[in-house]
Structures are given as C-alpha cells and as structure tokens.
C-alpha cells in the first residue's frame, strides 16, 4: 500500500515520460525505452500507470475521508444526543444502506458529466452510512461509561465530549473502517472510470482499462498484456492491500474475527 502511495507521490519525478505526451509509435511492445510499452496513441503505459496511482489513490482517499468525517460526526451526534435526532439519523442510514451504490453513482455521474469532484462527492455519499451506524453503536456503549458521564456532568458539550473522549476511544475502529471504505472507493471510482464516466483527460487505472478494453483491435495482438493487465493488477493489488490492512487492524476490535484467526 505504502509502495503505491509512494510511487503515486513521486510520479512526476520518476515517470519516464509525460503520460499524455506521444512518446513513441503506437502499441510498441515493452522495451528498454518503454518498460511497459505504449498504448494506441503511443503514450507510455508505465508513466500512465504511475500517474494513475496518484489519481486513483487521491480520489479514493478524498472520497473516503469525506465519507468518514460525515459518518463519524453524524454517528457521534446521533449517539450522544439520542431522542428524535437519533431516530431521524438512523432512519436516514437505513434508507441510505438499502440503496444500491453503483446504479446511483452511474446515474449521478452520467447526468453531471465527467468530473472528478462529482465522483468524489458521489462516492463519499454512499460510504458514510455504515460508518455512522458503527460510530453510533460505539458512542452508545461509551456514553454509559463513567468518564463520559462525568465529563457531561461538568458541563462538557457534545462537540467537546466527541473530541475529548469518543474520538480517541472509537479511533482504532474508525481507522479500520476508513481503510475498508478506501478500498470500496477505489473499486467504485475505477468502475465508473471503466464505464467512461470519470474525467477522461486524466489517466486513472479505471480509465486505462476503459481505453484498452474499448480499443477495437485490443484482442488482435499481444498489446493487452502490457496495456490492460498492469492497470487491472494495480487496482486488484490496491484493493487487496486496503482489505488486508483493514483485516490486520480488525482482530483487536472485532471479537468475531479474533476467534477464527
């Protein structure tokens, strides 16, 4: 995971070519000049992958950060205040959880046009509900503990109690949720890009897959091995990386998992 982040961060420095520049003939097979060959336009695939790492991770992290913040704030608020606020918030979560994410994202992205900001907002809007529910549950159990009661008794407001007591106690759980959500966000973003619904001027992994899979002659030559496969593998590894990171963080907080592994 770290490797991807690092490579993405350094993309402008280590990429051998500008990902948009035409740096050779089209569909060159891998060589010393182009380690992963070139695509149909003669752009360097390796450079595109490196910039794609940056693009994909950035969008996924932005979306999952936004989703996590919204989920944590809403969940903590609902859990601490209780009453009508809690009922309304949890009902909203129920409804949002019942909605299938992908069709909704497709419609929003198709109507709003290819735009990374829209994708970030849309992905965030489908990732917050589970977090809100988990945080609320955590807050409810924390609320009954002595130290939170004491803090409230001394006149601490919701915001203060969240920041001072709830966030640290629920922190590890939130962190593992964040990692989980980041994986989902990568898949959703790449999926939208694959359907041609993300910003086409940037080279995300899903965008590379889209271009490669819709290229009419992709199956006639071996070009798919250096054009399509690396991008797909990158997505898989990134998602798997997030999943394993989440799993590794989980046993401590989820007793059900601790029993099995």
């Amino acid at each position, binding site marked *: 995971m770290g490797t991807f982040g690092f490579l993405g961060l350094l993309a402008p420095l280590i990429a051998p070519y500008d990902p948009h520049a035409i740096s050779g003939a089209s569909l060159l097979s891998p060589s010393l000049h182009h380690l992963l060959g070139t695509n149909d336009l003669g752009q360097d695939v390796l450079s595109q992958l490196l910039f794609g790492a940056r693009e994909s991770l950035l969008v996924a992290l932005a979306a999952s950060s936004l989703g996590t913040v919204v989920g944590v704030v809403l969940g903590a608020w609902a859990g601490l205040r209780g009453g009508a606020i809690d009922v309304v918030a949890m009902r909203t979560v129920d409804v949002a959880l019942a909605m299938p994410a992908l069709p909704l994202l497709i419609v929003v992205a*198709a109507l709003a*046009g290819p735009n990374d900001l829209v994708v970030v907002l849309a992905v965030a809007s489908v990732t917050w509900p589970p977090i809100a529910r988990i945080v609320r549950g955590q807050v409810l159990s924390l609320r009954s503990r002595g130290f939170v009661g004491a803090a409230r008794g001394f006149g601490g407001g919701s915001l203060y109690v969240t920041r001072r007591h709830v966030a640290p106690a629920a922190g590890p759980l939130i962190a593992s949720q964040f990692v989980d959500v980041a994986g989902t966000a990568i898949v959703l973003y790449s999926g939208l890009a694959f359907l041609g619904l993300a910003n086409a001027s940037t080279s995300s992994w899903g965008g590379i897959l889209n271009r490669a899979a819709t290229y009419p002659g992709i199956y006639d030559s071996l070009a798919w091995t250096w054009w399509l496969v690396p991008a797909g593998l990158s997505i898989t590894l990134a998602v798997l990386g997030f*999943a394993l990171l989440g799993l590794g963080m989980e046993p401590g907080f989820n007793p059900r998992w601790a029993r099995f592994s």
Partner: protein
Amino acid sequence: MRASSYVLALLVLLTLNFFLPRVMPGDPISLLIELGSPVFVTPGTRLALAHYYGLDRPLVVQFGRYLTGLLHGDLGISVTYNRPVTRVIGERLPWTLLLVGTALALATAMGWLAGIHSAWRRGRHSDRGLLVVFLALGNLPVFFIAPVVLLVFAVKLHWFPLAGGATPFATSGRIGRVADVLDHLVLPATVLGVLVSSSSFLVMRGSMVAEIGSDYLLLGHAKGLPDRRLKYRYAARNALLPAATAAALQVGQMVTSSVFIETVFAYPGLGKLMFDSIGSRDYPVLQGCFLILTAIVLTLNFLADLVYPRLDPRVRP
C-alpha cells in the same frame, strides 16, 4: 419498523429519480435542440417545446404527473429506440434474470460447499488455502477479470462465443436455440458466479464455525455418528439459515456487477442497456434502468428481512 424503512427508501428512490436530472446542469430541451438544428430554434419554439413536454409547469405538478405515469407503467419514451422505455426494459430484463439466476446457483453451490468444508477443517491447511483463494476472488475487480477471461476463453481458445446472448438469425430448431443461449451464457455467468461465491463462502464458513462448538454435535459424535452425517445433516443444516438470507442480499450485489459483466460480454441485459444509454445520452432509458435495478435490490433486501424470522423455527413465536 423494517417495512416502513423500505417504503421510505422506495419513496426516496422515486424522488431522487425525479429530481436528479432536474438539479444537474443541462436541460432536456437544450439536449433535444442540440440533436436537431440549433440555428433555427427561436426562444418561442423553445417555450412551445417546454409547454409541449409540460416542463413549464410547477415542479410539484410535474412530480405528480411523473408518479401517476409510473403507476401506469409509463417510464417515458426512449430517445434512441423511439419506443416506450417499459417495453425496451421488458425485453432486456429476462436476459439479466437468466444471467444472475445462473450465477447465483453457481455461487451458492461453490461457496456453500467450500464454506462447509473450510469451517469443518478450520485452521488446517485446506481451510487457510480456501480462505486466501476466496478472499482474493472477493477483491478482484470484475471489470478487470472479465476482459481477461473473455480474451483467453473466447478470443484465444475459441471455446465460447465472443459476445451477445444468442446467435442472431440462427434457425436450428428449439433444441439448437437453447443450446446456443446456454453456450453464450457460460462465460458471463461463470465469471459473475465465481466472483460472488466469495461472500457465500465467507458467510457459510462463519455461520458453520459458530455451530461447531455446539453440544448437539458433541452428543452426535459421542453416539458414534459418522463424520459426514454430522457435517452435512447436522451442522450444515443449522448453519444454512444466515447463509440463505445472505444469498438474497447477494443478488443485489450481483445485479450491480452485471452492469460490468454485460458490458464486457456484450450480453443483451439491463446492465448493457444502461451502459449504452450513457453513451447515447438516452436519459429516459438510463433512469428507467436505474429505477428497475434499484427496485429489484430493495425488494430482495426486504424479502430477506421478511423471510428470515419465518425460516427459523427458533425465532417463531
């Protein structure tokens, strides 16, 4: 409590479907005009068009019309096919049901058998191996693996047809036609089924592991019942319940994955229709597909919730 949640979700869905296109940039009249000849359109024509489509009425009135239309099965007219959206969707829906149904059967058979085995031998080598394989399968993006499978089995090996749901204009009797449809079904259904089997496996394994410590198994073992019988007739039967509920929820997941599968394999179902409607900016079809797909998922989730207490005699009052 639960039922009202779903009714609420359905209402939100209908409202979203109505308001999303209205808050997004661009309006249908401009789109229509762009498609024709913008030069000759005066502001007067524009107003007349808006009036013709009822777009100059207050939003509330439009919303009311949209709802009554829906109740009559009216989803509007497709721009590309020039036919009612309901009809277009009606033709595509059976293909998606066939694909998802086959894949579900495959995923369930694979996931459950492997899950039972894995839980029975938990912690051993075969369990660890299966866990790794299924976790990896669960994380493979469908839009990556599908093109690769298509390439290997259809393009290189020529084992299966490249695209579509059936060979057009083929006339070889009823049996030949069924065989043809099945031939086209194998690849997409297998990819979808295998990818989704990961969650069947995990749920079955988890549910089975929870059964394994039970007293009745210990008693059965002490009575000298054969291992096979204990495994399948006793433990697996009790573990089936959460797994069966999870299967209903999985269909939702499969319906969404089918958008990618159908796009890659050019399978003539709803997902492909939805994808095509993005390219041709056929918004009535896009929204119709969205509405139907989401409604299917909502209904299945609701059914799973509804059926669960009825399946388990222990929960029954």
